[in-house]
């Protein structure tokens, strides 16, 4: 058998597997949507706000609700030391609003 036949055969098999993966994702979509809907119903009934991915510390369990200064909450010198802190993003809007939200006449008063 020619080398190209074998290699092209492998490549075709690889492409077919990728197509099969896409098909699998499509077939799994409907039951998975139902599963996520049940999870969403639980979130609504219990009133949850976060994913339970990082349970290692108080402030990593609920990243959406944790204080922004949590890294320093236990001691002034304690930088973030929990591994999941690496995943937590900086707030999208930055830390401050950049305005004090009152007018000059109030400052004068």
């Amino acid at each position, binding site marked *: 058998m020619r080398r190209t036949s074998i290699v092209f055969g492998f490549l075709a098999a690889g492409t077919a597997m990728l197509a099969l993966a896409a098909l699998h994702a499509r077939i799994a979509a409907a039951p998975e949507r139902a599963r996520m809907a049940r999870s969403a119903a639980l979130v609504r009934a219990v009133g949850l706000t976060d*994913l339970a991915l990082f349970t290692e510390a*108080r402030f990593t369990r609920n990243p*959406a*609700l944790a204080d922004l200064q949590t890294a320093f909450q236990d001691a002034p010198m304690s930088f973030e030391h929990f591994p*999941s802190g690496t995943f937590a993003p900086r707030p999208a809007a930055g830390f401050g609003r950049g305005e004090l939200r009152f007018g000059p006449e109030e400052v004068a008063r």
Partner: protein
Amino acid sequence: MTSWLRRQRALAEYTLAALARRRIKNTGLLLIYAVVIFVVASATLFATALRKEAEVVLAGAPELIVQNLVMGRHDMISGEVIAEIDGIRGVAGIKGRLWGYFYDRLNGANYTLMVPLDPDMAPPEGQAIIGESLPRVRELPWETAPLFLSRYPGDLVRFDIAERLSSESALVSTDLILLNEADFRAFFELPENVYTDIALSIRNPREIDTIVEKIGRLLPNARLVTRDEIARTYQKLFSWREGIMVLLAGASVLAFVIFASEKASGLSAEETREIGILKAIGWDTGDVIAMKLWEGGLISFSAFLLGTVLAYLHVFAFDAGLFASVLKGWSVIYPDFALTPGIDGLQLTALFFLTVLPYVAATIVPIWRAATADPDQVMR
């Protein structure tokens, strides 16, 4: 057309024979290449699936959370505030949330104790609804075995198990212990009429900003978190620009780029000689370049297919086992969750163009230089 195809096939045949002459080196290259694509594709598939899960599941989260801050820290909020906020127009529903953490000295796990917002879901007195990981980390010997929690040495509080939450919602509920309000207050010795925070539902989502402003004026010390902000946190979590993903993928991609450019751009003396001989026996520049295109294409396309298919299996058949230890960190509890399989065509195409094309391009440039030179000079 057929003659063109036959010619290409002959070129591919020659290329494979040439690759087979340096079998170990090329197999090594293919494997490293596939591993790099596997890591990048796994991270992409995993992050996308997780973000999608967060987007769908957390759509049921409260529209607005009001937290009380004392000295810059989250503190309990008085129930009297509920009546004040309830008077604001546009607020459809308002409830105090009771939730807190419990560190289990027995196994070092952190549990989240909570009172469900929906009173129908609250378990009867003395009972608890527990998340999927509790029986696992506490090694509860039988289905209805009671849960004993110890707050301090000598203390033991018993909860009978009303229900075990299904593992299909593990990603949001794995560490939960749901109690009724009286049990929760007794367990944490909380006074009446204080809450951890307040959850609001809002009739018209367009009014959220106005309501946030009104509450801000009413409770200047409060911190307000909208559902949009929660969603944004999770859309940004694991994003490419953030920490660990850059570390994970960046280092390996960089190492591969150095390796591949070294391999692809610097022609070995042997390869240069080979090109010289090919040209001397009558191959033209186009043939040599086509042959090298086949080489780059075969290696990078094989690596792409291998890496992507393995990444799909890793993330969706083996629950991203390689990432679990990274995500778990120091936690005792890690949810046993499966993600919704999905392939994002756009991401896959981007991955293809970012991995396959640069390699093919890197092979072509030095070959072009060697192939256009005089055979006599190249062979010397």
